[in-house]
């Protein structure tokens, strides 16, 4: 088989995934496009392993590692997306502008103006490791109505 076929297919698939990452707005769809890019890389690895006839099978072993790391990445990524969705009520990437420079303060972002949940502590405070400090009063407050 000509090596240009899998190489060109991998390139085109990577560019389709690149377009998806840049153009999509929903965070879950961005993760899907990332999966496409990772699969393009895997296809390249397998094709070059078949071409080089490596005795160590580096290409196929690295493909297995990439698949496992991609599975871990999609799990963590979806957990983060769900956390952002719970905190902000939206998983649109365009609205998550707390770290943007000069585009307006975090209280006056276009997405946050219509939402009442942005006045709560931002998501970065939840991630900075003060879980025990927050967990105790929240669980105590949670027991009260129950």
């Amino acid at each position, binding site marked *: *088989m*000509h*090596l*240009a*076929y*899998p190489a*060109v*297919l991998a*390139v*085109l*698939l*990577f*560019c*389709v995934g*690149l*377009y998806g990452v*840049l*153009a*999509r707005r*929903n*965070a*879950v*769809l961005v993760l899907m*496009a990332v*999966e496409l890019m990772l*699969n393009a890389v*895997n296809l390249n690895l*397998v*094709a070059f392993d*078949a*071409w*080089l*006839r*490596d005795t*160590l*099978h580096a290409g*196929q*072993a690295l*493909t297995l*590692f990439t*698949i*496992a*790391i991609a*599975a871990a990445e999609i*799990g*963590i990524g*979806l*957990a*983060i*997306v*769900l*956390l952002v969705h719970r*905190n902000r009520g939206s998983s649109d990437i*365009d609205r998550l502008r707390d770290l943007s420079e000069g585009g307006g303060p975090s209280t006056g972002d276009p997405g946050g103006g219509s939402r009442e949940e942005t006045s709560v502590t931002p998501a970065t405070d*939840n991630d900075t490791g003060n879980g025990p400090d*927050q*967990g105790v009063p*929240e669980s105590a407050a*949670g027991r009260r109505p*129950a």
Partner: protein
Amino acid sequence: MNPVVPQPLAAGHPGFLSATGVEVVFLLVGLVILGAALVTVTTKQLVHAALWLVVALGGIAVEYLLLTAEFIAWVQVLIYVGSVVVLLLFGLMLTRAPIGRSPDADSGNRWVALTVALAAAATLVTVVIDAFRATWIDLEQRTGPGKGSSEVTGTALFRHWVLPFEALSVLLLAALVGAIVLSRRQKAGER
């Protein structure tokens, strides 16, 4: 020991016009993959994007089979088609993705994204074709188990790649604990 330098370079060049059956099937499945991937990144219906992703990933599994990587192909079917797409569907469900057409699925900078993607595709296709114009993969199987069979892959994985394998298990454990911690904290925030 197999030589590192591939043999088909010295062998007679098969040529572009005398495509073998494997190449024809590879091209057709590749077209299906590209079409499914394009629908995945452009459709307005979010659930349909996940379902077209199944077509693209399954087609890539077929390409692995054509490249004689059987074990990778079945791992691809098991992990990607079996679990990653299910995870993505659960993610769409839990983020309350709208059923049906959602007009704001694409960001406002999609034309910039299209420009970047087309430029990258043109550059990379030019470079790749220029680099690998005269290289052929020898997929002929001579004796013994295939290069991508589970026996050969397992031997290579557990003989030469044991240390990365164990490190990968630690990474998977870390990812598992991380996912549990992330979901536990959001559950505690709800109560």
